[in-house]
């Protein structure tokens, strides 16, 4: 614990504690709409953080992370739907499936030195042909989808059945846990090796970094964490379709919060998720008033463009400097 907080100024720790208290108290403070927005923010924080391990820390671009979220969601939802196996057992299978998938994608890419966009293409290809496979897999409901019974009025932690408050606390614990895990990783040998690989893999290997092993750990850890988000997602929305679970837009959506917030930073995914979700809600509201179909997407696209043009390193590094906090991009 002391290692985790060492070097962090006291007033920052205090701010983090206040933020945590506010988040814990949020269901009592917010209405149903506010809570549903905050749930989205935390979901994108969590899965963005998971993706950030690969891209922000180890410098490996994955544009197919929907693969791991989708496999996780289908594994846990399928086990629950067919055999009544609860999601806490299902999540173990989900994680195992994602680790195997991540291991295959990673080994093919890293062993044969596919770099940059070529590796990204490989990740897209795997997500796409998994999508096509699930379209034709009866057990998983095929292209017609897999549906769980909606039970919003219970509060069943063991089967993860219940209303928004239950899902809020689960995703809050996941997001905080992932944040702490990422901090611990960055302050470890593995984390520093990832940063070295991101900067220059050949130079890293010359000073003893086992590059292939470290990259494999990045992809499997990232995939495992993403699979947990997939399980949560499946039980929160109660439905799964190959088109959405493995689709390109799901993969892109996972990458946006850390890119907008600040790649490779711990707080970037959260800041990015707040900005993106907030923007999404505001633009939905505006376009509802304007009665112009599709105007929301245009607003959203323009806003993203402006942010990426003026803050290419993300909002958080800039914001942190202005606030005098200065989480450096490690």
């Amino acid at each position, binding site marked *: 614990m002391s290692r985790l907080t060492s070097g962090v100024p006291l007033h920052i720790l205090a701010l983090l504690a206040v933020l945590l208290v506010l988040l814990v108290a949020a269901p009592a403070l917010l209405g149903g709409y506010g809570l549903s927005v905050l749930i989205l923010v935390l979901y994108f924080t969590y899965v963005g953080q998971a993706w950030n391990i690969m891209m922000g820390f180890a410098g490996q671009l994955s544009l197919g992370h929907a693969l791991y979220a989708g496999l996780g969601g289908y594994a846990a939802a399928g086990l629950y739907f067919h055999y009544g196996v609860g999601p806490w057992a299902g999540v173990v299978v989900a994680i195992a499936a994602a680790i195997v998938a991540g291991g295959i994608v990673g080994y093919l890419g890293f062993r044969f030195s596919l770099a940059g966009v070529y590796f990204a293409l490989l990740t897209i290809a795997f997500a796409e042909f998994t999508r096509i496979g699930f379209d034709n897999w009866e057990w998983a409901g095929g292209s017609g989808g897999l549906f769980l019974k909606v039970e919003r009025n219970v509060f069943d932690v063991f089967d993860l059945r219940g209303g928004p408050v239950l899902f809020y606390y689960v995703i809050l614990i996941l997001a905080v846990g992932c944040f702490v895990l990422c901090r611990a990783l960055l302050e470890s040998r593995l984390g520093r090796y990832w940063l070295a690989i991101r*900067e220059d893999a050949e130079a*890293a290997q010359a000073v003893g970094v086992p590059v292939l092993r470290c990259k494999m750990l990045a992809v499997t850890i990232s995939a495992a964490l993403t699979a947990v988000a997939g399980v949560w997602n499946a039980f929160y929305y109660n439905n799964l379709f190959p088109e959405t679970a493995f689709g390109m837009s799901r993969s892109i959506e996972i990458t946006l919060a850390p890119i907008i917030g600040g790649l490779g930073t711990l707080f970037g995914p959260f800041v990015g998720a707040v900005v993106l979700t907030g923007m999404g809600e505001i633009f939905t509201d505006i376009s509802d008033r304007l009665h112009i179909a599709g105007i929301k997407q245009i607003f959203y696209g323009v806003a993203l463009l402006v942010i990426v043009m003026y803050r290419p390193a993300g909002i958080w590094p800039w914001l942190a400097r202005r606030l005098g906090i200065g989480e450096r991009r490690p």
Partner: protein
Amino acid sequence: MSGARLEISNLGKNFRGLRAVHDVSFAVPAGTIHALIGPNGAGKTTIFNMIAGVFAPSAGAVAIDGRKISGLRPDQICDAGVGRTFQIVRPFKGLSVLENVTVGALHRHPRLPDAQAKAEAILHGLGLHDRRHQLAESLTLPDRKRLEVARALATEPKLLLLDEVMAGLRPTEIDVMVAFLRELNAQSGITILLIEHVMRAVMALAAQVVVVSYGEKIAEGTPSEISRNQAVLDVYLGEEEVA
């Protein structure tokens, strides 16, 4: 820390029919400093890359203290006790100077605080300690050269391969680097093999000089012997005044 003996026997490398290195053999006894010189394109860096494991030799072998290391991966060769610098410097640009050296130190000191302490000590020795919190990309070229040496030393090698670390340094800076390396060698007994064009440094440091030209060894001897060797003068030193 102590030095290791490097032995290179009948080393060869072909790149798609291009013979870059052919039948090169020499040894560097533990604790000594040797230099590898030769005209541009003679194959010096190729020999370094084979020692460091960037690619496997087409023929022959490299051994450290009698243990064959050719064929191993670069990180395994680092583990065997070989540290190297890159001719074209390759700092981790987005990381601070301290973090650059810490990555090297983590190899033998898995706990981050230990590695950082080790890195700080090395940065003191190389006069980079004041700049430890700067990003590596903000360093001047001479400082980047020093950073290369610091990062390699952080892995606590028994054999240090230095690829033109003097290039781009001013004469006074060369003297400082020469003094540092001589002191390092005297204190720790580390074996050093350097590729160098700066004759001032070669003469001051090397006990023995190996000369390669067109991928083959053409001479080996003390600096003063080499400076009188006719074959060497013909291919290489003819254009340069030797002290």
